[in-house]
């Protein structure tokens, strides 16, 4: 008894910690002991389903608006056909990546592409010339194929394809092009805002932003009222000429690719509804460095490619364009070049400039009537 008294008197901290520890442990059902490393929210309900079944998931709604051409079955089949045929052809010469790189749209000329590929792009080119007579044709992004890797993840499978920038007759523009542009995205876009030197554009960028909270999170200052409002509010109250999207890295460990794609599609639909005249650029999720790629089960380039493949399917080459930003920064294995980044995920400040330059040479300029 005496000992106990003395113990209580000399060891108040020991007792306080023991008691509070016991309380915390019971209150939390011993999670501190049971499990302490978990990867945040894992939507086990929404695992990756092969995207093969959903080859054409572009925004059909925009078509049914009536302002664009109707989706006729023939075209979709043609799409799929050309897609699979190119896959087959490329898969043979898979190891020969030089060949594949040459097929990348860096040169951006339609004629080169039209000469070597099927009717799809041909008709796109002719559609451009005969814009007055014909309704615009959809242009699907083309893909660079590579040998699929075996994956074992609830979040992704290896698509075996890297979507390329939508083939289009892009114009080269000055920075004034971005006067009515808005950039929406995560920390990568925050970095662009901070360091690219682009000052005349609008930025709705926030670290940790995802496709799931992009529209509703209130983090944008409304210039009219000075209040914090959501992106959807801004979209409904202001008019933008161009919308650049870059989200997806934070979502890599939340739900499968299909789930992500569905959410992305919803956002695009709403943006189209609110800004029917805007050109929407879906920018590829920027890859990570080889070091990061190899060390991370979630934040790796296979997962990113799977997501990029999924969102590239949502573009139509009419109002929504896919831009493969990764081609600015990638090394020979299509990873983010190690020297351009410190943490493997974000560009060093000095390299954001080339992103803007890329956008300046990939600008969609619609002929004013």
């Amino acid at each position: 008894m005496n000992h106990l008294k003395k113990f209580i008197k000399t060891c108040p901290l020991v007792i306080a910690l023991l008691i509070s520890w016991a309380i915390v442990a019971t209150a939390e059902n011993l999670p501190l002991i049971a499990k302490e490393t978990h990867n945040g929210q894992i939507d086990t309900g929404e695992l990756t389903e092969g995207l093969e079944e959903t080859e054409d998931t572009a925004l059909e709604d925009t078509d049914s608006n009536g302002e664009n051409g109707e989706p006729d079955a023939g075209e979709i089949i043609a799409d799929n056909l050309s897609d699979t045929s190119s896959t087959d052809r490329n898969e043979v010469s898979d190891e020969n990546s030089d060949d594949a790189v040459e097929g990348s749209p860096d040169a951006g000329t339609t004629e080169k592409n039209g000469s070597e590929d099927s009717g799809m792009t041909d008709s796109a080119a002719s559609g451009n010339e005969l814009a007055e007579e014909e309704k615009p044709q959809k242009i699907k992004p083309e893909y660079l194929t590579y040998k699929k890797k075996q994956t074992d993840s609830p979040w992704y499978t290896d698509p075996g394809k890297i979507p390329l920038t939508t083939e289009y007759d892009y114009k080269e523009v000055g920075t004034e092009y971005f006067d009515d542009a808005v950039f929406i995205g995560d920390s990568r876009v925050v970095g662009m805002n901070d360091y690219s030197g682009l000052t005349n554009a609008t930025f709705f960028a926030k670290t940790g932003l995802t496709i799931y909270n992009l529209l509703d999170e209130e983090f944008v200052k409304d210039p009219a009222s000075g209040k914090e409002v959501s992106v959807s509010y801004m979209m409904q109250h202001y008019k933008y000429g161009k919308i650049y999207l870059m989200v997806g890295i934070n979502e890599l460990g939340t739900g499968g690719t299909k789930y992500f794609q569905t959410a992305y599609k919803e956002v695009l639909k709403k943006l189209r509804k609110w800004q029917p005249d805007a050109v929407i650029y879906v920018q590829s999720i920027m890859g990570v460095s080889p070091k990061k790629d190899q060390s991370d089960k979630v934040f790796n380039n296979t997962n990113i490619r799977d997501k990029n493949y999924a969102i590239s399917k949502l573009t139509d080459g009419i109002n929504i364009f896919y831009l493969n930003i990764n081609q600015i920064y990638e090394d020979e294995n299509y990873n983010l070049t190690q020297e351009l980044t410190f943490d493997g995920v974000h560009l060093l400040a000095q390299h954001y400039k080339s992103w803007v330059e890329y956008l300046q040479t990939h600008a969609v300029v619609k002929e004013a009537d």
Partner: protein
Amino acid sequence: MQFSSIEFVFRFLPLFFLCYFVMPGRGRNLVLLLGSLVFYAVGEPLYIFLMIASILINYGAARLIHRLRKWSGFWLVCAVTADLSVLFLFKYFDFFARNVNFLVNKDVLPMLQLTLPLGISFYTFQMISYVADLYMGKIEEPGTLLEFATYVCMFPQLIAGPIVQFKEVSEQLKKRALRMKNFEQGLELFCLGLGSKVLLANKISIFWNQVQGIGFASLSTPVAWMGAVAFSFQIYFDFWGYSLMAMGLGWMMGFSIPRNFFAPYMATSATEFWRRWHITLGRFFREYVYIPLGGNRKGFFRTIFNLFIVWALTGLWHGASWNFVLWGIGFFVLLVLEKNVYGKLLEKFPLIGHIYIWLLIPVSWMVFEISDFGQLIIYLKQMVGIHTDQVLVSTAQLVRYLKEYGWLFGLCALCSTWLPIHLYKRLKGTRWIVVIAFAIFWLSMYEIRQGANNPFLYFRF
């Protein structure tokens, strides 16, 4: 297993102390040794055998030194050579090979690419100090194998120091009293150390990471200085916190582990800084390198030469890379200058001394931290305001940083002064320290848990 992990605090520690206290006095060394081996094996399942082998070799040598006095010098050389060879192989071989290959311009030596065994730099030095002390007669008896092994492996100081000397704990290894008061005070110290590591070092490290993420080429001068100061705080509170936790754990078990830091950033000269920073390392080099080389008793030039050796080795001990050597030699130059040129001035005008140290230390830590020489030059240029590339960090961003991190810088600065030490002395034994330690403990646990459960807290994109 880090001290600042849920695993350690909530699993290992309670279980260990339960066994420790249940065991009667004689078995406690064994509990401590086994506990320490478990602690080590969690982080280093393979190299634990290397450590055990080293312990056996050194203990064998120690017995021989003790038994065969005539040959003691030989056995000492054997033991130290063995220890340093292992250290060289694991820590320095690739560095050495790279330089040799560079010099002869051919790949004559292969890269081994061995991973550095946990704590090897610390336990090697402890073992060397043990055999050397036996040789020099500073230790009378080599003790039992269990005592020696416990001394080397003791988990509080095993992986990050302090570098304890055998003579400091030899009595306690034989017999130590377990007092409730010591346990309580040890726990207090542990909590304070935990706070230093988790609440200060980990938090401010985010800023330094950001600066590295921006890239040195684009920094403005004020942000470059903020980055250097942030890293200075990070390394201090990290290391000090670890040392405090080690000290606290030692007390809880009935050991007195020596102090490793004593307000180093309040020094007024580089000489004084090194008497207050990583005290047990400075002591090691003084006792086992500087003095055996002759110290300052062999004339001016020999003294300078001895200092040079000590500081080049001090630098190299911190890592196998030239920037560490440069960092060590930088301190050598400063120490020689202080000793012979302006030391008196700094003593007379403490304000000048403070400013001198506060400017110097962040710069020195940049030399320490940035291993790429080109990058280091860029960083130092940014600090003095020579911008070769375009500065991309705007003033608006600086203001944002100040708003976001200003309070943390302030808090770190405050905790770098004498204040926490005085406060601790004043409050020791009162109820206040209990409240403070309790709050710090749970705040730290909260932070750790947030970080563990949610990797995005520290790493959101």
